[in-house]
Each structure stands twice: as structure tokens, then as C-alpha cells.
């Protein structure tokens, strides 16, 4: 868990834990008085290392729960930056973050640090995928899902079940939400429940039908409660169900989670297939993912970008730039926007055409690349 162990290419910001027992000795008193946790549970929490994938609406709320509750390490991973449309529900961000296009993981970490200096907070500015998950999961006891798409969740489920790490799923759109604790050895994995990426992603996303913040908080609360149970040693108290809820019409339903599926290579007893990754192949070097409903395409170039060298080039092509240490946002004369990250990702905003997005990246960055 030392910094050298994190062999990664993406930007990381780490806030080490600094205990101030004199001033904050009473910090956990109300949690200690809660019988099922007590001082034993608090000690276990102190030793726990949590990965939160996605630091948007759910992720920010989850991060706050884990940090205030006193987890030992809270590791945040998010590929995105703060925009004004996030502020209505993403509790850790403010107008300055949106103005500066701050990476969500870093902006969140800075807020969290002020809430509880006794927690080690790591911010990873990274596109979480099968390729990048290895180092992120290193030493982790539990993963909280704050992602916004099925593909990343399936990659997370595959990796967590291979490594034996519980994954607390949560999802939310409009006034609806769902949550389930998926636990290797106890429950089926996400792939067995919702299928692989051949199916659609569900027509409704927060970008098409919206989302209200009470729905987010409701789901985050369900996830955080399960995480606290697991990490404080109350593993028999795990709920064991998939909850679906609508907080507007108010309807809550629980469905019992099945055990592992015998023939599944992730959650099944058939370990001969463990590690069989044929169906989740590594992706090619340059690729583009259309971000549904956002009029955006994420292009992954497969090699790091030297942002400081690129800026003069972009300006020479008529772009106006917003710059921070993690990303460079370039407004093109025609209104399109390129958001460039040093790990080789480019968000192309103003198109939903993957081919056009790749073409634009190649044209705009060509003199640099050549």
C-alpha cells in the first residue's frame, strides 16, 4: 500500500492520514455507542481499505460516508471532471470545482480531507476498465460502486469475484434506485444477474430522464450500510437481497439474491474456467466509446499525452483553453470541445459519432503525434 506499489500511469493525489487525537478524540463516540459496531467494529473499520469507483453522485455520497465513519483508506477512482450540471446532486462539489473543471476524484478528495484528516484519501484520475483495475484493487477489502454504466460494473464484478472482494452495487435514475451486495462465495456475480454487454444498457440514463438527489442519497445509504456491516465485522447481518425502490411514488421491494451460478467462470464452483478472459478481451490501442445521451465520445489513444506540449498547438488551431494540473479543456471555433487527460484519454463533446470523434482527435493532435 506504499506509494511505490501503485504502479500506474494516471494522475494520483494522495492525502496521508494525520491523526489529531487531542482535538478529535470524541469523533466516533456516537458510532461507538451503536451496539453492532462498538469499539471492536471501529477498530476493524480503521484497518479497512475501500475502493470507490466513480465519484459522481453515488460515489461522492459513499465517499463521505466512508470517510466520516473512519475507514483506514478511501481510494477514489473517476475519469470525469466537474461540470455545472453535476452540482444539483453531487454533494462534494461546488461552483469553483465546476469553473475550474476539476477532476472529480481530486475535488472530492480535497473536501473529504477536511472532514476527516485521520483517513488516507487517494484520488485516482483514471478511466476504470479491466485494463486499469489491477493496481486499483491492490490491498482493497471492499468496493463501492458509484459508476454510471453497465460495462464498467461488469468489469468490476469480474475482477472482484476473481479476487474475492465484495462489490456493493448501486444504481439510480430519475426517482428510482437499486442496490445489492454481491459477495464472492455467497451470491451470484453481476454478469449472471444482468448478462454481458451484448444487451443494451437500459434506455434510461440520468442524461435522458434526469435524476433527483434524494434518490441518489437513498441508494448511497443502502450501499453504505452494507459496507459498514461488512467492514465492521457484522457479516451475518448482510441483507442478502437486491432492493429496488422508487422514492417518488414510494415503493420498495426486495428480491432474494441467488448463490453463485455453477457454470460461471466468476461466481461458480467450476474453477477450471477461472481466469478465462476470452469474453472480456483487452481492447485495442485506439478506441472510442459513445457516452449515451451526453453528446460526447470518449477516445482512448492508448498512450499518454504531454498536455503542456499540446497547448500551443491547440491554441494555434484557434482553441480557447481551460487548464488545470490534470486536464486541458479546448473549445474549438465550431463549438465542439476536447477535454484531454494526461493518461491518453480525450473526451470529445458535441458529437455522438465515434468515427468523427477519432478523426477530430487525429487531426487536432496530429502535428504533435507525428
Amino acid at each position, binding site marked *: 500500500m506504499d506509494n511505490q506499489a501503485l504502479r500506474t500511469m494516471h494522475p494520483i493525489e494522495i492525502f496521508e492520514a494525520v491523526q489529531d487525537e487531542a482535538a478529535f478524540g470524541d469523533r466516533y463516540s456516537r458510532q461507538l455507542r451503536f451496539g453492532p459496531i462498538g469499539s471492536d467494529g471501529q477498530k476493524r473499520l480503521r484497518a479497512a481499505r475501500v475502493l470507490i469507483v*466513480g465519484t*459522481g*453522485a*453515488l*460515489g461522492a455520497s459513499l465517499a463521505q460516508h466512508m470517510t466520516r465513519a473512519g475507514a483506514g483508506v478511501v481510494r477514489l477512482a473517476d475519469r470525469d471532471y466537474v461540470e455545472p450540471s453535476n452540482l444539483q446532486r453531487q454533494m462534494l462539489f461546488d461552483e469553483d470545482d465546476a469553473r475550474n473543471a476539476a477532476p472529480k476524484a481530486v475535488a472530492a478528495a480535497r473536501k473529504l480531507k477536511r472532514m476527516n484528516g485521520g483517513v488516507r484519501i487517494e484520488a485516482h484520475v483514471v478511466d476504470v476498465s479491466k485494463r486499469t483495475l489491477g493496481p486499483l484493487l491492490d490491498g482493497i477489502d471492499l468496493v463501492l*460502486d*458509484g*459508476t*454510471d*454504466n*453497465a460495462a464498467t*460494473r461488469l468489469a468490476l464484478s469480474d475482477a472482484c469475484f476473481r479476487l474475492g472482494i465484495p462489490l456493493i452495487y*448501486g*444504481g*439510480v*435514475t430519475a426517482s*428510482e*434506485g*437499486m442496490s445489492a451486495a454481491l459477495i464472492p462465495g455467497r451470491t*451470484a456475480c453481476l454478469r*449472471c*444477474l*444482468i*448478462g454481458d454487454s*451484448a*444487451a*443494451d*444498457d*437500459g*434506455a*434510461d*440514463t*440520468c442524461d435522458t430522464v434526469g*435524476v433527483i438527489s434524494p434518490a441518489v442519497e437513498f441508494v448511497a445509504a443502502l450501499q453504505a450500510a452494507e459496507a459498514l456491516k461488512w467492514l465492521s465485522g457484522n457479516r451475518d447481518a448482510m441483507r442478502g437481497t*437486491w432492493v*429496488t425502490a422508487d422514492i417518488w411514488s414510494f415503493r420498495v*421491494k426486495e*428480491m*432474494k*439474491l*441467488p448463490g453463485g*451460478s455453477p*457454470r*460461471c467462470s466468476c461466481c461458480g464452483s467450476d474453477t477450471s474456467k477461472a481466469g478465462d478472459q476470452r469474453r472480456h478481451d483487452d481492447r485495442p490501442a485506439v478506441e472510442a466509446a459513445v457516452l449515451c445521451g451526453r453528446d460526447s465520445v470518449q477516445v482512448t489513444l492508448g498512450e499518454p499525452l504531454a498536455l503542456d506540449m499540446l497547448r500551443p498547438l491547440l491554441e494555434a488551431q484557434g482553441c480557447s483553453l481551460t487548464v488545470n494540473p490534470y486536464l486541458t479543456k479546448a473549445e474549438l471555433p465550431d463549438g465542439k470541445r476536447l477535454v484531454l487527460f494526461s493518461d491518453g484519454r480525450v473526451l470529445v463533446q458535441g458529437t455522438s459519432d465515434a468515427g468523427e470523434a477519432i478523426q477530430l482527435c487525429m487531426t487536432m493532435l496530429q502535428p504533435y503525434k507525428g
Partner: protein
Amino acid sequence: MADSTSKLDFQLYCITGANYHPGRSVVDVVEQALIGGADIIQLRDKTSSKQDIRENAHKLRQLTKRYGVPFIINDHIDIALEVDADGVHLGQDDLSLAEARQLLGPDRIIGISTHSIEQGLAAQAGGADYIGVGPVYPTGTKPGRAAVTTSYVQEAAAQIRIPFVAIGGITLGNVDTVIAAGAKRICAVSEIVGADDPAAVCRAFKAKLKAAANDSEAQQPDFAGTGVIVNGVAQRTTARTVWELICQHSLEERRIVVELDGEIVVREEWSRTPIREGAAVELVHFVGGG
């Protein structure tokens, strides 16, 4: 998939086998079969050069168009696309259904040979338009493969909802047994293309299939369906499995979680899990935002 029979409406499936008719051309023999009433044709040729297969494919495409009958090519997706065939037929060891679908697009027919109910259900779940069920009897076209007998035909009749065609060693002498086991569609190779008069053999097959179809229509009382509760609403359904129910609700392409009587059913079990009278089913869309 919800209406998978619309692409395919056939009873007698004829597959080519040039070794059974030395001295006569494939096109002549297939035309005889078409005259006799074969209502789907497959070009299967494991021995000729690709160029010869391509030439025959072009000719058979023209011929089947004239008779208004679907034309399927065994294995060669590239040739199927080149000659604008109606579809392809795959073996268990060929390209996967998903890969084939990607190459062929949504509209072309994909059939697949299956040798057990597990393979049949997997092909159905994977989006096949029809399956071959066999070999019912030992056959010269598939030497060395153990016959599955009519027991797989019975299983298929009970559990497979896409069209299935019984194949393998079927002759005018044994076809009644195959039909009695539940086959509504049958396929023959040597019995048809090896005959002196393929048209007469086809007419005889068709007569037996038609008589059986009329009988079963006359005998079967209307199936009133199973009473179930779906998302809190009581309804009757003809679906026999969770998968069929999902298809009837046109949710087969959606990401959903399925609960049956209080417990979630993993996807792999959908086509194997029966719907019983009084079952309570919840079909819930996966919520993906965050």
C-alpha cells in the same frame, strides 16, 4: 426473436449432397426437390473447391429465387453475403452465433446444428433463427456421430420455441416415428437427393407432414395458458419458461433482473426455468445511473 417464425415458415428442408447423385448436377436435383415441394434449400459441400462452391451458390440462388424458397449456405458466410443468400447454417464448432450475427446483420437467417437439449437451448438463447435437431438416426453425411434418437426430438418439442428441424437418417420409412416424437419440420439429404425421382420423394414427405399437422390441429384443445402474476398484474400466458415470458413481453434485448416467487433467477437458467400456475414474476429494468 419475439416473432421468430415470421422469417421462417417451412416443413421440408432439403440439403445438397453431390456424392449421392453422380452424373446429375446439383442444380437439376435441387430443382426436382423444389418441384416436389421442398420449402427451404441448403447448399452443403465439404469437399469441393471454394470456387466451385461459389459457382453452385450463384446458380442455386437464382433457382431458389424463382421458386420463392429461402436459400441457406453451410459455413461459408462470405459466399452467403456475396450471393445474397437468405442465411447460413453453422455447426457447433464453427463461428459463434454472435460473431455470425455481427457479420450477417439482423435480417438474415442463422441456423445451427445441435445434438442435445442443452445445445438447443443455448442456441435459442443466443439468437438462432432455427436449430437442427439430430442426427436422429445414424447417417452417412455425419459418419461417426452417435445418433441422438427421437428422445432429443421429444425434448425439443417440449422446450424449444424457435423452429427446430429433425435431421439425420430420416427416410420415408421412419419419418412417421420422427413426426410422432413431435417434429413438425424434417430434413433429409440422401433420401431426397439420392432418389431417382426427388420430386416424388418430396411430395411423399410433404403429404405425411401435412397430414400430421392437420391431425394435431384437430386434436389439440385450445391451450388457455398458465395463470401468472407479472409485476403485480394477473395474466394468462402461453409461455412455458421464464425466457419465453420475457420474449412475450419484448424484453429479450433489454438488461433486466428477473425474480420468480421471491428469488432472482440467474440469466443462464431463464430458458430452463418453467413457469408454473400461480407463479409471481417480477421483470425489473436494471438501473444504471450513478
